[in-house]
């Protein structure tokens, strides 16, 4: 009798073990809900870009969510809320507070203004240890990460690189010792990038006869325009957003001394027509990474198909799109939605070694990560190669040019070493 009971117990144990071994992989999968929040200027001056940023982030989250549903995995992603920073630090902090304290998000996608990011990160994200993937390019954002793993991640090359890229591009077009007048908006983005360019340009022997930092909110910019045409420059560099650049461009035209074909713009001026403003034929501008990924056309097609009517496509919003995938895959590898655990895997997900996957192969990427394999996620903007300090190491820049028909297109891509 006792022997029968022992045999029965052994048989039951074996069948339990066998059943456990044959359980589908999903039962051994991590189970969590990754909550995203979007922080962007949805109204006011940055609205045209902010709406696109929000739409791209939402597109990515919906894409991941539907993939997970199709695969019947116990992992969920959701866009908890999109908050409007209005492009101002004060409003950005308030919006970030709502995302973190009330909505309990794990990851914030935004802001793309460096000034808003700096304020929101310092006041909200870092104290609460919530990750931020920002479109801000001010180099000082990297310094906000005072400990590891980083909390603020910049999927686009910072302005200290953009300044170098601009110096390279302008030197190539007008000669390294050309006289270039610089006009920049008076905020963290404009004044910082202008200073970086000035240093790079003068180091190589170039001169800057007029260096004008202007308040974009002035009623008129005629005085600034008149200053910018003084000194017989060989060319111009403008650092501004499209809305306010138009306020400067018109008095520049009225001076009769400005040539758009000898003018260069920062990444925010690459295609003003797409942002509800207008382009100036001949003018060139840079943009980091934005269209250099193999999956960029697919992202663009997805946006065209799914984004709301009236929201214009802008290449830089691919950064928001990529950030969602990076955060999600890092969470999957960490098997957790806890921000600091995600942060510990961002570098791993975006660097070699590992099989390369784009968002188009997200199912395969999910299977690989779930199986414990190392992957290398390549964004729509190209390889990201995040480093532990929160910056990307891949430094490709598109050169855009405004066309006679008012549109803009990439004419060349350069790689900074």
């Amino acid at each position: 009798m006792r022997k029968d009971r022992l045999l029965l117990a052994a048989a039951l144990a074996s069948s339990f073990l066998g059943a456990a071994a044959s359980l589908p992989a999903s039962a051994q999968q991590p189970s969590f809900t990754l909550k995203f929040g979007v922080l962007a200027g949805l109204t006011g001056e940055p609205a045209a870009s902010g709406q696109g940023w929000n739409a791209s982030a939402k597109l990515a989250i919906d894409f991941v969510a539907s993939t997970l549903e199709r695969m019947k995995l116990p992992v969920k992603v959701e866009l908890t809320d999109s908050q409007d920073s209005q492009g101002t630090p004060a409003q950005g902090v308030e919006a970030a507070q709502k995302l973190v304290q009330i909505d309990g998000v794990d990851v914030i996608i935004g802001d793309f203004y460096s000034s808003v990011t700096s304020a929101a990160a310092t006041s909200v994200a870092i104290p609460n240890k919530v990750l931020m993937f920002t479109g801000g390019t001010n180099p000082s954002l990297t310094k906000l990460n005072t400990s590891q793993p980083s909390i603020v991640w910049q999927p686009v090359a910072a302005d200290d690189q953009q300044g170098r890229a601009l110096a390279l591009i302008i030197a190539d077009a007008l000669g390294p010792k050309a006289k270039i007048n610089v006009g920049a908006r008076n905020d963290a983005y404009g004044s910082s990038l202008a200073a970086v360019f000035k240093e790079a340009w003068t180091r190589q022997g170039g001169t800057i006869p007029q260096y004008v930092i202007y308040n974009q909110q002035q009623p008129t910019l005629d005085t600034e325009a008149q200053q910018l045409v003084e000194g017989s420059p060989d060319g111009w560099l403008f650092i501004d957003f499209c809305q306010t650049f138009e306020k400067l461009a018109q008095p520049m035209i009225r001076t009769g001394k400005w040539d758009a074909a000898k003018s260069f713009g920062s990444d925010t001026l690459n295609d003003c027509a797409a942002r509800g403003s207008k382009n100036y034929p001949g003018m060139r501008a840079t943009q980091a990474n934005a269209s250099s990924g193999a999956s960029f056309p697919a992202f663009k097609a997805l946006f065209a198909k799914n984004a709301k009517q009236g929201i214009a496509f802008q290449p830089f919003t691919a950064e928001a799109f990529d950030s969602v995938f990076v955060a999600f895959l890092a969470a999957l590898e960490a098997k957790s939605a806890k921000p600091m655990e995600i942060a510990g895997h961002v570098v791993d997900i975006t660097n070699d070694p590992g099989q390369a996957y784009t968002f188009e192969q997200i199912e395969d990427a999910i299977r690989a990560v779930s199986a414990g394999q190392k992957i290398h996620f390549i964004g729509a903007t190209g390889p990201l190669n995040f480093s532990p300090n929160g910056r990307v190491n891949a430094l490709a820049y598109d050169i855009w040019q405004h066309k006679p028909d008012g549109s803009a297109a990439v004419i060349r891509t350069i790689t900074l070493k």
Partner: protein
Amino acid sequence: MWQQLAQLIVNGVITGTILALTGVGATLVFGIQRIANFAHGEYLTFAAYLGLILNSALGLDLLSATLGAMLGTAALAVALHLLVLKPLRGRGLVAMSLVTVGLGLMLRDAVFILAGPQIRQLRIDETVVYDLRLVRISPGQAVAVAITLVVAPSLALFLARTPLGKAMRAVADNRALAEISGIDVDRIGTYVWLLAGGLAGIGGVLFAVVQGSFDPTLGFQVLFLIFTTVVLGGIGSAYGALVGGFVLGLVMEVSTWSGFAGGLEARFKPVLAFVALILLLLYRPQGLFGKARVL
């Protein structure tokens, strides 16, 4: 160098035109209704967009569009006064001012939702310029200055010589005494809003013309300069706002003249405006034209 100075004076007059015209409406409301109307900037924005509809969509010429915007903005100001501000009267300056902040936010977002964030332009070629050898000025800027030079003295005459203008001044001076004297202060209050809205209407369209392009943040961008104009000129003084606007515009632009030890950097222009205000108030706390009496 002298050509630069001449151009900067013209630029200062152009900037001053906008501040003067928009400051008068704000100071009248403050002096007579005792409300710091933080929605005043949005009245300019409303006027600019109304002008855009009349000029671009309906094909009216700029003058007709300006008149239409003036009437529309005046109607808006009166409507908000009757529906929102009048029922809340008596809550105190701070509370009423906060209400106007809310009204401003509401108006700005309404314009944004209806019109979108795109840059807009009136049907006027902003690249045309009159080259007068010493100075260059666009037709739009010249028209703005000309209109202000007509409107400003007309307004002063209206306030000084007409029964309605005198009644407004009486209410501003001493509301209780004016009421006892038989003046219908409520009706005067409505007329003040009508006048302030009308002036904001003209100011908004001219601002859009002078600036060349605009978006829903048009009026908000200059709100604090408008209030600086009001305080500089003396709160409640229409003359003061007119003069204060031009003084502010000239100080900001001419300060960048290279003859002043290289000139002030352009980004410090608003700083200079506030420094000028502080210095004036230290010497003359009531502002340029502020006294016990208001105009």
